[in-house]
């Protein structure tokens, strides 16, 4: 075991901020390469005309998931030192729905809005303004939602733990599911394009 490097003390908190900038640069770079600086391209996901969001997201999840799996199996990465957000099922489902509404209304998510803004899109800047306003609003009404926010706590739990299934099997199943989703996305895009031609 020698990773995560930061947790093994290879560098300190000050240096971690420099690492943060470089990881952010990589993150922003590939988001922009995918076309995620454009709200139209992102929103097209919800009209089945361009399934890039699904393709990029699931490819990224599968890539990182398989990498984490093998690195932990081979004893390079200590998974117990990788931060896992605790599950609070009800607020996370409700938050996901509201976030989904915000996605199709605003056209971005927080990360893609930053890319959109930095590449000159005015709607990206306004969206970022909306983010600040929304967080301030949430902070000010927090005492009203605090109880719901802390409801249905399940601790740090992964799908293999919940389902009592081997980690590797679940990794494999997610890969199969992703390939199925990609095939469906390619088929759906062709279908929509044909429909448009026919008009």
């Amino acid at each position, binding site marked *: 075991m020698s990773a995560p490097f930061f947790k093994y003390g290879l560098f300190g908190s000050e240096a971690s901020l420099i690492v943060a900038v470089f990881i952010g640069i990589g993150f922003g770079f590939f988001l922009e*390469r995918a076309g995620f600086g454009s709200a139209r391209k992102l929103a097209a996901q919800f009209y089945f005309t361009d399934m890039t969001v699904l393709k990029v997201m699931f490819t990224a999840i599968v890539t990182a998931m398989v990498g984490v799996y093998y690195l932990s199996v081979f004893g390079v990465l200590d998974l117990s030192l990788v931060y896992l957000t605790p599950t609070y099922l009800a607020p996370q489902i409700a938050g996901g729905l509201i976030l989904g509404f915000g996605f199709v209304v605003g056209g971005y998510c*927080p990360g893609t809005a930053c890319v959109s803004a930095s590449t000159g899109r005015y709607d990206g800047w306004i969206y970022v303004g909306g983010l600040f306003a929304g967080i301030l609003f949430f902070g000010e009404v927090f005492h009203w939602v605090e109880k719901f926010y802390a409801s249905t706590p399940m601790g740090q739990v992964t799908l293999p733990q919940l389902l009592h299934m081997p980690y590797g099997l679940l990794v494999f199943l997610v890969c199969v599911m992703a390939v199925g989703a990609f095939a469906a996305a390619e088929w759906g895009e062709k279908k929509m394009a044909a429909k448009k031609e026919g008009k």
Partner: protein
Amino acid sequence: MTVHSSDDFAPKPYWNPYLAGIGLGLVLLASFVIMGRGLGASGAFSSAVAWGVQRVSPEHANSNPFYAEYLGDGTTNPLKDWLVFEVIGVFIGGFISAKLAHRVKGKLEKGPRISNRGRLLYAFLGGGMMAIGAKLARGCTSGQALTGGALLNLGSWAFMISVFIGGYALAYIMRRQWL
């Protein structure tokens, strides 16, 4: 990809989505391996808001558990935070990619059937809704869907499915903005 000399300054096509996805996944993997944490975005905005509120009214900020979580013990500036620096990187990385592909341009992203003002209003509203959803869910598309998705985190998968349901549920009402 063919490059025409007359189109040297025209916006280049986006990458193949699977290739961009692999790149994004490798960045996420690098974050796990180097830092022991995934990517994020909304947390950086929370730190900035908490910092701003504290500047205006320290008592108000410190008595609110939501802000207090981002303010820490007061020994370090709340803006000296990993996610704040990561998001600064996202701005830089997005700009570099767009610049290299001639895609940096001041414009509005919208469908042909909505006014500029309408689009900006929706952008603001959508940003606000997104922020509330992300705070309630303890993360956004990056911190929950991507990061937790790759770690097979239960809450993240429940979140991710809800995001798609929410988006598709409102898509028909919002179609004038995009189609």
